[in-house]
């Protein structure tokens, strides 16, 4: 394992009273990278972030940030900033005071403090709200105050713990773009925790998918999408996720194998069909329609059709797909390279 990366997590483990938190977490993050820790709730992604932040101390393993071993260092010394899920704004302080709190604590001269604060408010578009208390702000504005507080110190590493989960869907999209732009403008390294795979896939350079306290797969969004290493990844990533079919249902595969196929690779069969399914639901999204299909030996089969498509629920549909688009998994759920 090379120790030259900007952030290195080396075989980190953390347990609470014997209960597993995270285990064998090894990860390298390059400077300027946007890394998303993705996984279902309880998978240990927030724990990993808190260990990295120094809010928890690992039972084993080492953490290196920017060449320094920070494993036993308190949070304040790790030279990083953090955006909390709840934003953790100080309710009795105004926006300006919230943003300047850290600099005041560190006794940054007043002139520099005000300059940096103005700059941070410029970037986050919070001008005119300096004197408001957090309770007088909307959810989106509070979120931006939290961002401003995180960027004002100019730390190279910024941790974000589900920063968008308290926003409505439309705002979430907008802020997603803002964060991404902020990151590339300021050249920050961001470690971003989310349970929303769309968020992770659309923002991150590298996605770390976790399950039960372990890392399941690390890779670029494309890699996770097109080469899932396990059935768990296959079923977690993508909207809709990959359909999994028991090998026995298809010719040319054994009953021990599980076959995965993406919705966009499934076609309605014109002559030779490979499966016959029942329509369970129709989801019209404007540009395309997703048709949910049921088959007793398959899970999550979805057919993607362009535009508006009408299929009656309960209707039988014959479908087919090409061998080259299939993903094959062994009985343990591990990816098997295509023959």
């Amino acid at each position: 394992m090379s120790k030259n990366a900007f952030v290195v997590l080396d075989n980190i483990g953390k347990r609470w009273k014997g209960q597993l938190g995270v285990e064998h977490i090894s990860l390298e993050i390059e400077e300027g990278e946007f890394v998303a820790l993705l996984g279902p709730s309880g998978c240990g992604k927030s724990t990993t972030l808190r260990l990295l932040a120094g809010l928890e101390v690992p039972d084993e393993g080492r953490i290196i940030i920017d060449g320094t071993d920070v494993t036993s260092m308190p949070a304040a010394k790790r030279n990083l900033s953090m955006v909390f899920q709840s934003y953790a704004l100080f309710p009795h302080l105004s926006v300006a005071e919230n943003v300047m709190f850290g600099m005041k604590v560190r006794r940054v001269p007043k002139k520099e403090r005000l300059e940096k604060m103005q700059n941070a408010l410029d970037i986050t578009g919070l001008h005119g709200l300096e004197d408001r208390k957090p309770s007088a702000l909307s959810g989106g504005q509070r979120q931006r105050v939290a961002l401003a507080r995180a960027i004002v110190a100019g730390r190279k590493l910024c941790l974000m713990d589900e920063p968008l989960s308290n926003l409505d869907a439309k705002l979430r999209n907008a802020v997603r773009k803002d964060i991404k732009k902020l990151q590339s403008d300021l050249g920050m390294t961001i470690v971003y925790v989310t349970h929303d795979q769309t968020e992770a896939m659309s923002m991150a350079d590298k996605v770390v998918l976790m399950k039960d306290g372990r890392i399941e797969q690390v890779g670029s969004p494309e890699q996770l999408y097109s080469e899932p290493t396990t059935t768990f990844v296959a079923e977690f990533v993508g909207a809709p996720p990959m359909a999994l079919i028991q090998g026995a249902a298809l010719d040319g595969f054994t009953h021990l194998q599980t076959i995965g196929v993406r919705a966009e690779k499934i076609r309605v069969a014109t002559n030779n069909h490979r499966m016959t399914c029942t329509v369970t639901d129709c989801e019209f999204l404007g540009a395309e329609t997703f048709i949910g299909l049921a088959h007793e030996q398959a899970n999550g089969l979805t057919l993607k059709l362009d535009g508006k498509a009408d299929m009656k629920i309960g209707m039988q549909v014959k479908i087919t797909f090409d061998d080259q688009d299939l993903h094959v998994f062994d009985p343990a759920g591990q990816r098997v390279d295509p023959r």
Partner: protein
Amino acid sequence: MSDLAKLERRRRAIFGWLLLSPAAILLSLFAFYPSVATLWSSLFSRGTRRRPTEFVGTENYTDLFADPTFWIVVKNNLIYAGVTVPLSMFIALSMALWANSKISAKGFVRTAYFTPTVLPMIAAANLWLFFYTPGLGVLDQIGALFGLPSVNWLGQPETALWAIIIVTVWKESGFFMIFYLAALQTIPVDLREASDLEGAGRWTYTRRIVLPMLMPTTLFIAVNAMINSVKLIDHLFILTKGGPSDASKLLLYYIWEQAFAFFDAPHAAALTILVLLVLGIVAAVQFILMERRTHYQ
């Protein structure tokens, strides 16, 4: 406006008044009416068999202001309030901060601090009587170990008031601690973490974040502590009876004495009105002053 909307509005108004009425009736009956009645009776002379009650205007008040005991009692009560209010609040806050931190036996500590509150004041006073008793008392016994002379804490004018003050602080701190503890638990943990990340130490966090966020509680406790400094006199009956030579006499005890020992109701009424007036003014000032610096969530 349509008839339906009018009807609805009236219905809501009636509903509101119905909700208010139980408290309004009880308060009028047992607080407002007695206050007014007291004010009224403070304007009349004390009736004897030979001289019936007559209207004397402010004479009862001028009597009081001319009475040296009154001024001693006022001074005593000012010292009593001036020491017990800030001291018990400070101790309450310190205990709450400690009992709220990550210590082992947290439950035990909290219970121990709260015990004095559970005891009736009379019982607590008897307990302290045992502490203070010259010769036999715990304080003297401990003092004797170090060869200190016996002190009659409650029996000499120099120490009597202070002995009373200590009992009050001991009794009240635990009670106020509960309020602080409750308020502390509403402060989210991630505020602590956010300030940790910014490099704020424990003291900075307490001073810049915790104390301002406790302001509503502090205001509430301050008003209560001040009212208690007038109200809480049960222990005087057990410990000193206001003595020696009025050294530990407090306003409410004096009022009781006037009314039920000397049977001078008009003077007691005048005293009561004065106390109500002062308490009202101080509470109003406290609210106005602290409101400005208080953040409510």
